[in-house]
């Protein structure tokens, strides 16, 4: 619009100018035509004036941009193959970068989805390994809360909640739900407000107070179809009526922050009273710092306070508070993984840019004539560079759009991946920052791979390129070193990615081959808590006996046993002491405890080293017995057999009747520590019961068989939750596996690009040297000689790249040592595999041009330009 106005303006001005001019000439006595002609000559050409005018006007930038874009589209359409390849490769690179960015954003950059999250602090107990050593006792929490000066409030949740502990019966299908008990101030401290209903009341947080629950948003939508009338409705949980007092917002995801990979369905109030105090260390704490108080000051105060509280009452568990910022606690352990991913994806992008730069450089050779003509017509160097950059930016933007689509799809897949226990993974999404990042990457990439070709093309002098014989080996030479350097860089980066992936794959294999102490294949577990009808120990024992009998007699099942805690899940530890020995409170031995039935070891595939398994004869009336693991036996009774010895734990005396192999129950990478097993018939101290079966069916088949065996015994057996033991192991390894998959993908992509880069450079070189090859063949070189010389050229190129890459990979190995397991930082297998892979790929990439060179007809080659 404004353009036309200005054009009209100018027309008017020029018209006036001509009028004046003509007037003067008319006054001088010329004829009208003569006057007009003179006036026009004097003005110097209207069109040129208009052109000059337009050139100086505002917004020339936009005009030339449109021009460049149109021209660029025409050029790219001519070379559609190249354009498609560039868009695809850029798309893959940007897709990978965007996905990694989204994950890093969710885990590291974005603040936690709570009110004022930078003041939230995770307060753990620092007494050792295992959940019992890292949680806090109720009385300690209450003392800490009242005496400290750094926190405006401290809230808690019951860390020993069981997944699937709450059985929902009544209307509809019976279902196992996960319930997390929380303190009254838990949601208010985090700033989470229910979308329906209200928070817990003080009454409900008393011991034996009215039972209330808050539903999570997901559970409410799934089970109650977002029914608005849910507030106030009673539900039956574990046989008891509870009232729904509210529904939490969809943005609140307990599992994402506190328990990665876990789905929580509802929350109940946890009373902080002397009754719950008796349970020992049970609480996970979150505190909100007062404004102006730093973490260091709070930690110093907490250390002093902890000692004071521990010393003031010897009957309580010790309190040694260890404070970390909540965000750090949640995702801090993943920092090195994230850094590695970012570096890896950065290398991928660099390889993409190097590759495309090479391609465009090769293409620029054919565009020199076009550029030379434009330069002759008056285009400045800046203009030419702008033209070429516009083209590369167009390619990059298209690629980025494609990449963004891929990243969106990938993000959607990741979010649904429950199987990966990485915190905050469910919060990964494509949002503003993601789009901004993609745009930034697109521009940076476009400039990065477009700049070199643009500079190269525009700097060539007019004369050389307009001459007919533009073959010149000198020109090939000057291009050559840049392209070769780019390919060498590509190879080096590909080396690093391959080495990194190789090391991590080796680590993963080592982790998976660790001796777990149990056999996860062909085993599965299902919850069979006795319902409230079985109120006494005797009745429960007979329920267990009956259940085991039924299941064991089902065809296809080799072993069955019960346990209250599966490996790689939650754990708890108790103190113990061999009879006759005393310890101080600070070095009291602790062991992980499991309540099991006979048959458990067989079902889990845990080997017995000495002594015997529990038997139906171990009843409440017979002698209290216990089975320990090898580590405990060695530590408490070094040099002797533990069988027959007496020890004190929940009872003053238990006799050791068996020793079993250590089980890696904390994590595959961690040692077992001391473990002990108590017979289910002789104790009450369990809150859930898992039935473990081993058989020839698949987990689904086992599930069906067990269900049919048990339904007559317990008609309210819920349908869900048959977990395969292998699944537990897989989930525990999932973050490691996730990283390996990603890195292997990047490495594969890098390898392909490096191969293409090598192919491009060698192919180009063969083209340039056609005359030389022709001469050599005419002078007697055979096809084989030519082929060999090209291959040698390839190998030399690859060797330089691999040498650089090897050094870089060695450094990389050192840097990621923290992520490796049982694998050296310069593991020869991984490095060897990398060298072999690259060598093979390079040879293959060079083979095709080599063949082409050897097939050249010398006569044709000699005449080639």
């Amino acid at each position, binding site marked *: 619009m404004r353009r036309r106005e200005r054009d009209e303006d100018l027309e008017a001005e020029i018209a*006036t100018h001509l009028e*004046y*001019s003509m007037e003067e000439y008319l006054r001088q006595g010329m004829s009208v035509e003569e006057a007009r002609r003179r006036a026009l000559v004097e*003005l110097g050409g209207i069109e040129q004036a208009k052109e000059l005018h337009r050139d100086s006007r505002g917004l020339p930038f936009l005009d030339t941009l449109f021009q460049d874009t149109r021209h660029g589209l025409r050029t790219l359409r001519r070379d559609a193959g190249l354009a498609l390849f560039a868009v695809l490769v850029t798309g893959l690179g940007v897709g990978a970068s965007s996905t990694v960015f989204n994950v890093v954003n969710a885990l590291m950059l974005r603040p936690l989805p709570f009110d004022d999250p930078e003041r939230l602090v995770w307060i753990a107990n620092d007494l050792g390994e295992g959940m019992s050593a890292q949680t806090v006792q109720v009385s300690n929490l209450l003392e800490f809360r009242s005496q400290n000066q750094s926190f405006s409030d401290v809230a808690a949740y019951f860390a020993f909640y069981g997944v699937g502990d709450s059985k929902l019966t009544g209307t509809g299908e019976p279902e196992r739900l996960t319930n997390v008990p929380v303190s009254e101030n838990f949601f208010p401290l985090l700033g989470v407000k229910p979308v329906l209903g209200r928070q817990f009341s003080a009454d409900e947080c008393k011991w034996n107070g009215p039972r209330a629950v808050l539903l999570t948003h997901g559970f409410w939508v799934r089970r109650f179809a977002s029914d608005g009338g849910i507030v106030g409705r009673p539900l039956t949980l574990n046989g008891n009526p509870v009232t729904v007092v509210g529904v939490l917002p969809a943005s609140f995801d307990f599992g994402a922050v506190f328990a990665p990979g876990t789905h929580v369905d509802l929350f109940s109030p946890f009373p902080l009273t002397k009754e719950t105090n008796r349970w020992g260390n049970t609480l996970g704490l979150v505190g909100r710092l007062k404004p102006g108080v730093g973490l260091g000051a709070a930690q110093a105060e907490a250390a002093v306070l902890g000692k004071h509280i521990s010393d003031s009452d010897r009957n309580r568990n010790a309190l040694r508070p260890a404070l970390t910022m909540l965000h750090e606690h949640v995702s801090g352990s993943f920092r090195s993984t994230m850094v590695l991913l970012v570096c890896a994806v950065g290398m991928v992008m660099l390889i993409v840019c190097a590759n495309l730069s090479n391609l465009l450089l090769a293409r620029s050779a054919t565009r020199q004539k076009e550029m030379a003509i434009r330069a002759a017509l008056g285009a400045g160097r800046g203009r030419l560079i702008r033209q070429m950059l516009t083209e590369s930016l167009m390619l990059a933007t298209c690629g980025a759009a494609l990449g963004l689509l891929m990243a969106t799809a990938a993000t959607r897949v990741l979010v649904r991946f429950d199987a990966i226990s990485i915190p905050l993974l469910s919060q990964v999404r494509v949002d503003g920052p993601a789009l901004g990042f993609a745009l930034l990457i697109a521009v940076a990439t476009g400039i990065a791979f477009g700049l070199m070709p643009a500079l190269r093309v525009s700097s060539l002098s007019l004369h050389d390129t307009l001459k007919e014989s533009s073959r010149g080996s000198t020109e090939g030479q000057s291009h050559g070193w840049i392209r070769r350097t780019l390919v060498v860089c590509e190879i080096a980066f590909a080396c690093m990615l391959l080495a990194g992936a190789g090391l991590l794959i080796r680590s993963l294999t080592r982790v998976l081959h660790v001796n777990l102490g149990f056999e996860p294949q062909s085993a599965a577990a299902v919850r069979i808590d006795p319902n409230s009808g079985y109120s006494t120990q005797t009745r429960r024992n007979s329920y267990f006996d009956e259940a085991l009998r039924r299941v064991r007699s089902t065809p296809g099942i080799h072993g069955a046993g019960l346990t209250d805690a599966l490996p790689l899940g939650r754990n708890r530890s108790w103190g113990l002491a061999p009879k006759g020995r005393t310890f101080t409170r600070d070095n009291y031995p602790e062991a992980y405890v499991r309540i099991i039935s006979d048959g458990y070891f067989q079902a889990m595939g845990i080997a017995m080293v000495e002594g015997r398994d529990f038997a139906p004869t171990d009843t409440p009336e017979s002698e209290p017995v216990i089975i320990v693991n090898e580590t405990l036996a060695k530590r408490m009774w070094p040099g002797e057999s533990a069988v027959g010895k007496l020890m004190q734990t929940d009872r003053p005396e238990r006799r050791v009747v068996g020793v079993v192999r250590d089980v890696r129950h904390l994590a595959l990478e961690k040692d077992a520590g001391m473990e002990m097993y108590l017979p289910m018939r002789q104790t009450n101290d369990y809150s859930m019961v898992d039935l473990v079966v081993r058989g020839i069916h698949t987990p689904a088949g086992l599930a069906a068989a067990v269900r049919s065996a048990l339904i007559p015994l317990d008609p309210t057996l819920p349908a869900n939750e048959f977990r395969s033991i292998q699944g537990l192991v897989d989930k525990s390894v999932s973050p490691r596996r996730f990283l390996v998959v990603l890195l292997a993908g990047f490495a594969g992509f890098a390898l392909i690009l490096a191969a293409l880069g090598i192919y491009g450079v060698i192919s180009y070189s063969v083209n340039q040297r056609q005359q030389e090859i022709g001469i050599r063949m005419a002078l007697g070189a055979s096809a084989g000689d030519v082929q060999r010389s090209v291959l040698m050229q390839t190998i030399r190129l690859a060797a330089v790249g691999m040498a650089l890459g090897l050094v870089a990979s060695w450094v990389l190995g050192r840097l990621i040592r923290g992520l490796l397991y049982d694998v050296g930082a310069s593991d020869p297998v991984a490095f060897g595999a990398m060298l072999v892979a690259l060598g093979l790929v390079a040879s293959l990439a060079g083979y095709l041009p080599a063949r082409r060179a050897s097939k050249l007809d010398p006569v044709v080659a000699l005449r080639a330009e």
Partner: protein
Amino acid sequence: MKKKVDLLQGTLDVMVLQTLSVMGPLHGYGIARRIEQTSGDQVVLNQGTIYAALVRLQQRGWIAAAWGASENNRKAKFYSITRRGLKQLAAETDQWRKLADVMGRVLSVEPGGEQ
């Protein structure tokens, strides 16, 4: 080709500013005519370049333009110099004088000796 235009652009700008500061508001034809006259017809202008120069000077804020009526009631676009333009003119004049001075001294040295 480009270099010549560059040189002329700079000098033409100064000439236009000077003309406007002396003559007051003037239209494009008038400016071109005046420059030819005052340079004693030494400068043979491609008059079309005037309009490009006028736009440039406008963009930099050294002159302002307004449509108005000329002596014989013709509609024409009149240009006038702004305060910033006056400052620029003063600076450029100073620079030209210095340049002329230096060049004069350097070029007046006789071959083979001092002045």
